[in-house]
C-alpha cells in the first residue's frame, strides 16, 4: 500500500469516526466499537512481537492490566487527566516490555512463552496484594462528568480508542515495511543468522518488546473508565490474552494488516454473537475459528489472499 493511500485511509477512518459521533446517539454502538477497537489494538500490539519478531507472548493480559492499573493508581494518587494517564500507562508498559526483552537473551521459543505466562501471574499476584489499587477487591472509577464536545463519555472514549488504534496501526506498519521490519523478520526466521548478517538482535528485540508493552499498556489505560469497576479478574482476563493471539493468527501474522483484519472479523463476530446467541458460543467461536484457520490457512487471511492472487495453490 502506498504511503499516501495509507495515511489518507487513516485520516478518512478517523474523520468517519468523528462524524459518527455527530450523527448516531445510540450508546450501544460505541460500547461495541470500543471493545472491537480495544481488541484490534491488543492484536496489533501482540503482533509486533509475536508476528514480526517471532516471540509468543502469553502474558498479554498482564500488560493490559498494567495499563489499567496505572490509570487506577495515578488517578487515585494525582488525579491525572486521561491523555496523561494513557501516556504514563504506555511508558510503564514499555518499561516492563524492556524487561521482557532482556528475557529473550536467555529464553527462546516455548521457554519464552512460558516465562511471559509466569510474568503475568506474578504481576497479577502483586496487584491482588496491593491494597492501594483495591487489591482483589477491585476499584471503582467514577465516570468523569466532562466529555469535551461529545454527547456522552463513551463517545469520547470511543474516539480516543480509535485514535490510539490508528496510531498503533501506523507504528506497526512502519515497523513492518522498513529496514527495521526486515531486521525483525530476520530475527524471527533465524536469530543466529540475523546476528551474523549484522542485525543487532538484542536492540531490535528490545524495540519490539517495548513497543508491544507500550501499546498494550495504552490499550488498558482507558479500560477502568470504560467498565467503571476494575478488579484483577476483569483486568487479567484470559480472554484478553486469547484474543490478542487469535486475532493475528486468523488475520495473518507476517503483514501489518493481518491483525487488523483478524481483529475486525473476530471482534465483530464476538460482539454480534454476544447479543444474539449465548456467550458460550462466543468462546467456542474463538476456539473453532482459531483451530480452523491455523490448520487450514496457516498464513491467515492475508496469506490466503496472497495465494489466491498469485493463483497458484501450493
Amino acid at each position, binding site marked *: 500500500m502506498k504511503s499516501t493511500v495509507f495515511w489518507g485511509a487513516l485520516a478518512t477512518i478517523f474523520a468517519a469516526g468523528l462524524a459518527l459521533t455527530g450523527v448516531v*446517539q*445510540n*450508546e*450501544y454502538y*460505541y*460500547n*461495541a466499537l470500543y*471493545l472491537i477497537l480495544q481488541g484490534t489494538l491488543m492484536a496489533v500490539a501482540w503482533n509486533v512481537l509475536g508476528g514480526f519478531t517471532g516471540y509468543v507472548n502469553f502474558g498479554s493480559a498482564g500488560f493490559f492490566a498494567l495499563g489499567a492499573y496505572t490509570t487506577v493508581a495515578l488517578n487515585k494518587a494525582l488525579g491525572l487527566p486521561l491523555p496523561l494517564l494513557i501516556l504514563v500507562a504506555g511508558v510503564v508498559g514499555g518499561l516492563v516490555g524492556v524487561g521482557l526483552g532482556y528475557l529473550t537473551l536467555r529464553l527462546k521459543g516455548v521457554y519464552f512463552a512460558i516465562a511471559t505466562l509466569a510474568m503475568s501471574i506474578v504481576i497479577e*499476584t502483586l496487584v*491482588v*496484594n496491593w491494597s492501594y489499587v483495591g*487489591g*482483589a*477487591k*477491585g476499584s*471503582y472509577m*467514577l*465516570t468523569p462528568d466532562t466529555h469535551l464536545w461529545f454527547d*456522552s*463519555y*463513551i463517545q469520547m472514549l470511543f474516539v480516543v480508542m480509535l485514535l490510539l488504534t490508528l496510531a498503533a496501526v501506523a507504528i506497526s506498519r512502519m515497523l513492518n515495511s522498513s529496514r527495521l521490519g526486515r531486521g525483525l523478520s530476520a530475527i524471527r526466521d533465524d536469530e543466529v543468522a540475523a546476528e551474523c548478517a549484522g542485525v543487532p538482535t538484542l536492540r531490535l528485540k528490545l524495540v519490539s518488546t517495548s513497543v508491544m508493552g507500550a501499546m498494550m499498556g495504552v490499550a488498558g489505560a482507558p*479500560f477502568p473508565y*470504560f*467498565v*467503571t*469497576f476494575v*478488579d*484483577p*479478574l*476483569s483486568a487479567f*482476563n484470559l*480472554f484478553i490474552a486469547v484474543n490478542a493471539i487469535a486475532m493475528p493468527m486468523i488475520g495473518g501474522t507476517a503483514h501489518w494488516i493481518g491483525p487488523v483484519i483478524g481483529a475486525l472479523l473476530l471482534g465483530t463476530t464476538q*460482539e454480534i454473537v*454476544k*447479543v444474539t446467541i*449465548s*456467550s*458460550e458460543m*462466543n*468462546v467456542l467461536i474463538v476456539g473453532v475459528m482459531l483451530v480452523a484457520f491455523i490448520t487450514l490457512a496457516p498464513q491467515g487471511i492475508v496469506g490466503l489472499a496472497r495465494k489466491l492472487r498469485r493463483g497458484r495453490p501450493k
Partner: protein
Amino acid sequence: MKFRILLAAVLTAFSFAVAAQQKPIKVGFSMALTGGLAAGGKGALIAMEIWRDDVNKRGGLLGRPVELVYYDDATQGANVPGIYAKLLDVDKVDLVVSGYGTNLIVPAMPIIMRKKLVFPALFGLAANEEFKYDRYFQIMPAGPDPKLDWSRGFFDLAMAQNPKPKAIAIVSADDEFALNAAAGARANAKKLGLNIVYDKTFPPATTDYSPIVRAIQATNPEIIYVACYPPNSVGIVKSASEIGLKAKLFGGGMVGLQFAAIQQNLGPLLNNIVNYDFWVPEPTLTFPGVNEFLAKYRVAAVGKGVDPYGHYLPPFAYAYLQVLGQSVEATKGLDHGKLAAHMQKATFDTVVGKVKFGKNGEWATTRTLQVQFRDVQKDNLEQFSGPGKRVVLYPKEWKSGNLVYPYKQ
C-alpha cells in the same frame, strides 16, 4: 376481517387477552449465564421467568404483558456497559434490573445513573457505596451497613457466650466479595475488642487448604471467620475435618454451603458450622408464596444444571421483580421518578417476606441469617429440602433454634 374485529371486541372484556395484545412492558437485564457465576445466574433467570409467567397469568402489569429481555454477560464486567446500552438504546426496554453479583452490577451503574433509571439489584455487596445512587435498591438483605451487617450476627452469637471468646482468626479468599466480608468482620472484631490472631488471604485457585487451616490452628483462635467462594469453602471444610480443627465457633461467610450439591457432598462435615444464609426452609421463614414459588422452581430447574432446591438466590431474584412490579402497579405508570419515590417509602410483600429499603438502597434492617448445620446425614440430598438441618440462630425474630457451642466435629 369483520370476524376478527368482532373477536377482538369480545376479547377486550378479558384483561388477560388485552395484555396479550398490548405492547408488552420490557424488563431488561444482563445475567451471568456462562462464566464463574453462571450456576447462580441461571437459577436467577429461572426465578425471573417464573415471575414473568405468574404476572402474565394474572393479566400483566398495567394491563400489559411483561417481557424479559436479557443477554449473557459471561460473568465479565467488561460486557455489562454494552449490554445495558443495547437494552436501553436498541431494545428500548421500559425497566431494567441488575445482573447477579457486585462485579456485574457496578459496571452498569454509570449508564443507569445517567439515564436516571430505577435499578433493583441482585446480590451486590455494598455496590452502591461509591455511587450513592438514590434509585438503587438492593434485594439482598445484608442491611443498612452491608459490610458490617454481613457478619454482625456471627459476632453477636459469639459474644453472647460465657465466657466470652477472646481470640479470633479471619481468613478470606482474594476476591472482591470475600475481602469485603472479611473487612466487615475485622471491623466488628475490633469494635468488640477481640484479639485478631490470624488475618490472611489466600488465592481463590488454591488446591490444598491444609497448610492454611493448620497455620490458623497454630494461632489457637477460639473463633474462626471464613469468607470465600464455593470451591474454597469445600476445601476448607474438608481440610478442617481432616486436621481436626479446634475452635468454638467456625464459619461465617462461606459461599457455597448454601447449595444443595455441595451440602450433599460435605454431609456430616457441615455439622455445627455456623454460616450466613438468606433463606432456609425453617418454619420461621415460610413467607406467603415462597413455597409455591419453590415448587415451581424445583420443576423448572430439572436438567438445567442449577441448584435443585434454589433456596439461596432464586427467591430473591423473584422478589426483586416483585418489588418492581408492585411499584409499577402502585404508581400506575413507568415514570422512573415516581417508581423510585415509591420504592424508597413503601414496604413490599414478597416471597422473601416484607421488604423495606433504607436510604442507601439497602434493606432498612439486616436479615443476614446465621444458620447452624445440624444432624446432617451422609450422602442425602433430600434432607436439605425441609427444616431442621439449617437452624436459624440470628436475627432473633427469625430464630428457630439455639446455638450448639462450642463447635464440635
